[in-house]
């Protein structure tokens, strides 16, 4: 498949339930009322369709029509997981970055943080031969100085960049019910996959309560050379897996070297999403739920939605 950068619409989802705590037993039981939060993007052509109201949306949950409780949006705080390929920065795989790779990571993280609101939170995961959570998810008001490229760059035998491990760690992180989770990855996506195929990553991404945007460094060079290596990304398993995983979450993979500019665009897009909230009715709450969102008043619009969520 030829690589194309197309506007991909966003859809992220969170779930919540009313919890009842029995202090003497230390157990949490959840009631049958489950609140579902869904990030939806509606595009007419290449333009976001704004100004829609709750009654414009039709939502089914496991085939059963649902009534929206509210239409929320940009005000909802974000959890942003920045997943950064430390190999890219520290092992000279992106010679254009020069020796200031570690500094570049901090600069990028600070630029990302500067675009977030005070209530938003930022976490940083770096990966090379290891995966490190170099900044725990915390409010952006806190200092960023602790972010570092702390990863081991010890390459023994067939160690491969732990890109899947890092992405799975970010995508599987629990998300609070009142927040949206955006996973933003920067990587050269070179070398082999750290899993047998992209399938586990794509399948997990499809069920994650997060939206993945991947910024992939352009394949200007073959590894360690200056020979052009402009293979179509889908021909290279690692890129193909990341692209499909991003699409499975409702996000997208972008081929660019402009990290901060891309994040600015991503964030702008992200804040233009509609966030639908409904209380699940007419279907059992537990297990996997397929959901379908449509806008009947705009049959020509493109709506991107994740496939569902895991009921509590």
């Amino acid at each position, binding site marked *: 498949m030829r690589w194309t950068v197309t506007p991909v619409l966003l859809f992220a989802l969170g779930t919540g339930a009313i919890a009842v705590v029995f202090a003497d037993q230390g157990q949490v039981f959840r009631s049958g009322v489950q609140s579902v939060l869904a990030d939806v993007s509606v595009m007419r052509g290449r333009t976001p369709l704004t100004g829609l109201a709750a009654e414009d949306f039709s939502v089914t949950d496991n085939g059963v029509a649902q009534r929206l409780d509210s239409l929320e949006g940009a005000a909802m705080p974000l959890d942003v997981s920045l997943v950064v390929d430390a190999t890219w920065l520290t092992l000279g795989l992106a010679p254009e970055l020069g020796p200031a790779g570690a500094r570049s990571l901090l600069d990028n993280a600070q630029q990302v943080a500067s675009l977030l609101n005070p209530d938003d939170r930022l976490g940083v995961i770096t990966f090379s031969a290891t995966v490190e959570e170099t900044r725990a998810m915390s409010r952006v008001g806190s200092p960023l100085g602790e972010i570092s490229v702390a990863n081991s760059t010890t390459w023994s035998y067939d160690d491969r960049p732990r890109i899947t491990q890092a992405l799975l760690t970010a995508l599987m992180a629990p998300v609070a019910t009142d927040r949206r989770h955006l996973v933003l990855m920067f990587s050269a996506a070179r070398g082999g996959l750290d899993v047998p195929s992209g399938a586990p990553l794509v399948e*997990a991404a499809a069920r994650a309560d997060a939206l993945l945007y991947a910024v992939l460094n352009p394949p200007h060079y073959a590894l360690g050379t200056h020979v052009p290596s*402009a293979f179509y990304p889908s021909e290279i398993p690692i890129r193909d897996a990341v692209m499909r995983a991003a699409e499975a979450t409702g996000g997208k993979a972008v081929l660019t070297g402009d990290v901060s500019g891309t994040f600015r665009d991503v964030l702008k897009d992200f804040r233009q999403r509609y966030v639908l909230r409904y209380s699940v009715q007419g279907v059992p709450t537990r297990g996997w739920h397929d959901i379908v969102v449509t806008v009947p008043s705009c049959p020509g619009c493109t709506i991107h939605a994740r496939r569902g969520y895991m009921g509590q």
Partner: protein
Amino acid sequence: MVWQWSVAILAGGSILASAVPPHVVPLDAVLLLDQYERGDYAAVARDLASVDDLRLLDHLDSELAKRSKGWIAAGNPSQTRRRAFVAGAVALEVTHALVDGQTSRDGWTHDSANPEALPRVARLIANEVSPPDDLEHDWTLAQLASWEEWNAAVRLTAGDQWITPEPVWAVLLGEPTLMQLSRTQTAFGQGGYLQEALARFPGDERLLLAREEGRESIETRCPIEFCFDEMTPATLDQLRRRAKSAPPETGGLAQMMNTRIHAMAVANLEAFDRLLPAASRFAALANAHPGLRAEANVHIGYLAIRAERPEMALRPLADAVVSDDPHVRYLAEYFTGRAFDALGRRPDAIAAFRRALVVVPDAPSAAMLLAAQLFVGDDSTERTEAYAVLQAAQAAVPRAADPWDRYWYGDARLWPVYMEHLRQALRQ
């Protein structure tokens, strides 16, 4: 036995000293040889591990290549053969330090693509005609492990792996290899290192296993960046479409890319067709050598999975999971999980990945696949566990060696074991 040592290796042990101050001046080759002859092995290993600048190691390697012959001859004539093996052992230590340098630092250089001392000293030893003995056997296996770990360094860092994906295995088997390694190949003759070693030790199981592992690598493995080691129906379809259509003659860069993609598809499909024949060879090896059965069965299981025949993998892997060697046991459980996954037997896959993680806790290869399996289930508690599994794999410091990372490198994992045997033999 080998497996007892591999327990220590899996636990992160090493016979090299760590946390020593860096060396900033060149090490003297003759002083190292003298130290080693006196039995001060730990000091030599410590000195080599402390060299931060790979250029110093390159220089030492060259000096050792030049001076070993004179140093061997300078001793008592009755000690010539032993001194040759001392020089050989030091060459192995230096080669290991170069591998360590290349894989743990960003120091690949053209000079270090080809270790100088090791093939030259190996030639000197081969010229010392005498009946094979335990000392030579220990040296032979240690040298095998050195070349196998050298392959890891070359694969990680060589820029033209597209042309020759397995350069060092090619040296060992006498196949065409990288130009940089041709000097090394010349040292072993046309048949390659393994043919020479098997001529000295016919029927040696480690050498026979290495020969099949080398063939498996060369014939069925693909280059790193464009690697489809693991086929899926979708991948196969994609490759077949590519291979069927000739590259369009568009000219320029686009044609070059299309030509390479076409060649990649053809090469991957050819490799796919070699998977089951390779499994048959491992089966024959297992039948002839019961001591290799568990390891051969692991290879059979993996080859069957790659050949899209996971049902064929289960039986050999079930035989291998009872191995005493934790490296083998982990791989058997890990591949069992993957075979069950391919068969759509999710609970069995989860159970196998859990067992693998009992053998090597927090190994990323099984942890990731276990987490992925747990996460896609319909049980929310399993989703919580999936995240915990990944967190544990992330937090495991120092991380135990992941056997899956070492699958393609034969006995390289046993380098410390073989070196210790060699040192003990030199002491006697």
